[in-house]
């Protein structure tokens, strides 16, 4: 029973489930995030229709479905790029992994530009975070989502940078895999927000322009 090196179970690699600690952590973190966004979305829902009118009509009239559909599409495409990046990482193809990571971040940034455009447009129309309940819940919910996308973009770009500075650190495909989990989650949350805030939000709302 003397201690020999092979009886040592290295904490780094041994896990009861076979799942890596970090991947499990990310799954649990995302579970927690569901409740975060769930609470924000619920707050938006319960205040639906309670907001003071803007220019004589519901502030929901400002929502532009065609434009947001486009930005949603851009974000969804970024998820496809992410899948390709993870797949490259798993096959050990550093070059293509870098390319797809860059594309994911690029499309993510594109989505953010759409959001910046939309926020500016709303502010020009007189809707800010303090204008009424719609402004408060809309900007907070989409703003927190945008923050998540921003963090994701920074994360992906960080991995990209590290892959040049310290290629040994990205040898483990897990690093990309975990970032990918986060990225897909942020996408899925957007689909819920798009449905609830934009599509459902416009249902039954009388607007002059529509």
């Amino acid at each position, binding site marked *: 029973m003397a*201690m020999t090196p092979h009886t040592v179970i290295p904490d780094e690699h041994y896990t009861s489930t076979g799942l890596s600690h970090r991947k499990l952590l990310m799954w649990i973190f995302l579970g*927690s995030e569901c409740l975060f966004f769930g609470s924000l979305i619920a707050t938006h829902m*319960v205040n639906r229709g309670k907001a003071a009118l803007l220019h004589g009509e519901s502030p929901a009239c400002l929502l532009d479905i065609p434009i947001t559909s486009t930005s949603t599409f851009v974000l969804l495409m970024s998820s496809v790029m992410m899948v390709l990046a993870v797949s490259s990482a798993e096959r050990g193809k550093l070059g293509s992994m870098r390319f797809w990571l860059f594309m994911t971040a690029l499309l993510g940034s594109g989505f953010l530009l759409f959001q910046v455009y939309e926020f500016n447009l709303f502010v020009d129309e007189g809707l800010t975070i303090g204008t009424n309940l719609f402004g408060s819940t809309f900007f907070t919910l989409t703003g927190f989502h945008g923050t998540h996308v921003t963090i994701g973009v920074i994360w992906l770009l960080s991995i990209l940078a590290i892959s040049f500075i310290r290629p040994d650190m990205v040898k483990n495909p897990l690093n990309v895999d975990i970032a990918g989990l986060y990225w897909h989650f942020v996408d899925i949350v957007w689909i819920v927000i798009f449905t609830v805030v934009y599509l459902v939000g416009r249902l039954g709302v009388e607007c002059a322009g529509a």
Partner: protein
Amino acid sequence: MATASIAKRGMFARPIAPTGLWSWITTIDHKRIGALYGVTAFILFLIGGVEALLMRLQLSQAEAGVVTPEAFNQLFTMHGTTMIFLVIMPMGAAFFNFMIPLMIGARDVAFPRLNAFSYWTFLFGAILLNASFFTGSAPDVGWFAYAPLNGPGFSDTGVDYWILGLQVLGVASLAAAFNFIVTIINLRAPGMSMMKLPVFVWMTLVVSFLIILAFPVITVAITLLLFDRQFGTEFFNSAAGASPLVWQHLFWAFGHPEVYILILPAMGIVSEVLPVFSKKPLFGYTTVVLAGIIIGFMGWGVWAHHMFVTGLGPVANSAFAISTMFIAVPTGIKIFNWLGTLWGGSIRFTTSMLFSIGFILLFTIGGISGVMHSVVPSDAQQSDTYFIVAHLHYVLFGGALMGIFSGIYYWWPKMTGRMLNETLGKLHFWLWFLGMNITFFPMHFLGLDGMPRRVYTYSEGMGWDFWNAFATVGVFVLGLGLLVFLQNVWHSRKNGEAAGNDPWDARTLEWSIPSPPPHYNFAQIPHVYERDDFWHKKYAEGADGRPVRTVQGAAPSSEEHGHGHNIHMPTPSYYPILLSAGLTLIAGGLVSHISVSVIGGILALFALYSWVFEPPTAPETQTAGPAGHARDKRRGGGKR
């Protein structure tokens, strides 16, 4: 900053000194972090206790003038917030930290640096929250901080401290909960299936899940409130058409699971202590575990019983009344299973056991009065009165705190290597048992006699004088008990009896290793074959169902097998505390000056990226970093 840290081995030399202040500041050893949690929470317990004492003095007679109305409101707000977030939760975290890896046969938690980060974030959050006393505006809107009283126009900057303090504490709790879930799921010793886990570990798992699901909800609520106060949003602004009830729904959707976050660790402790001192396995292990899980689930469906008098309507009230009543069923199952454990046992009345038995009695009272509140029509008389204060203290003092002290007396020998004095311990128990009942039982009467909660004064002729004076006496009995405990701790540290590996003839893995445990815990990771594996190594079951001591007894401690040579333990790090400090400064800047936030942000970013580039375990050939940093002495023997 990030580029600066992309040096081969980070900015700083790894801090590897085994003792001294820096070793504690940079420690990532779960046992040291557990000890830090425990000591910090205990100090905050004294602060919360002084707050309670001042309130009881103010209420000891009609129209007393011990404190001003402003101060009284700050006291009850801070007392509630402190006891919940800064005492009971971190005391639970202290046990999670110290005991979970030992109980599941692991060398540390899954993320040791994240663990250190949790502790420092908790400490800084606590400091931020309490700093409000020194800026002259402690929060004064109650720990529940109902809208719109918590909003701009009705309350002072104290509420901002409250929000930001809780925000920081939330980060700490979440990080710790993620860590424990991964640890429990992933780091169990070979052979330890989920249904072989000690019940305390199971309850920790349930609590951690409750934390990760409940804390985002309060995070959102207080973020929205922060926006209302700082950026002019209208989430809870009733003048703009918002319903203040949205706050209550969000708050209690968090707040009720929080109650189970507070009580389940104590239930876990009791489920460990009762079998050991009855010399019997836990009665109905599977049922107890399942009941804990079901309580965790059902805890999400009862929040509106905090809102029975807010006019939800008869249908909603009925639904929540029924769900609340039926959460009593799994709770009752636990109580009866504990009684089943005692029944036919061989009961030793150690202090730890007395606290567990006290827990059962007192928690039963608190649980039953909880069921009384689910009866909506009679609750309309009890809601927001001292009856509720009595109920919640039977659950949180009689329940959670008695359970925690049972755990302190039980695990103290393991943690320190020395016994606590049993005579002093028993004196402590009886003083607390009596003091607790003297303080809180009369509050039932006061509530039913019409005394509302959160009043800083009452007039003569209401008939509340006697029981209020009586309750105040109880606080002094409790204080005396606390002094006895402190004396006991002092005595134990000075000349306590050496504990040995297994002073209680206990059942679980932590008792198979030396006390206090070596830094690597297990010289060899054990293989687990049975539930209560350690017990089964010591005893076989005879033909008559009674335990028979095995010839060799438990395998002697693994200490002689190599003194932990060749065990690579994670290396201490500066970055967890730096990241915590950065985050807290970001929050602190919002109540002082924005430049503080900017500095905090830079610090946090630096710490985060440095953390990423720092390997968990320093390579053996590591040399010190850039010149100017003191080169720490390499620890003798073990390679940390």
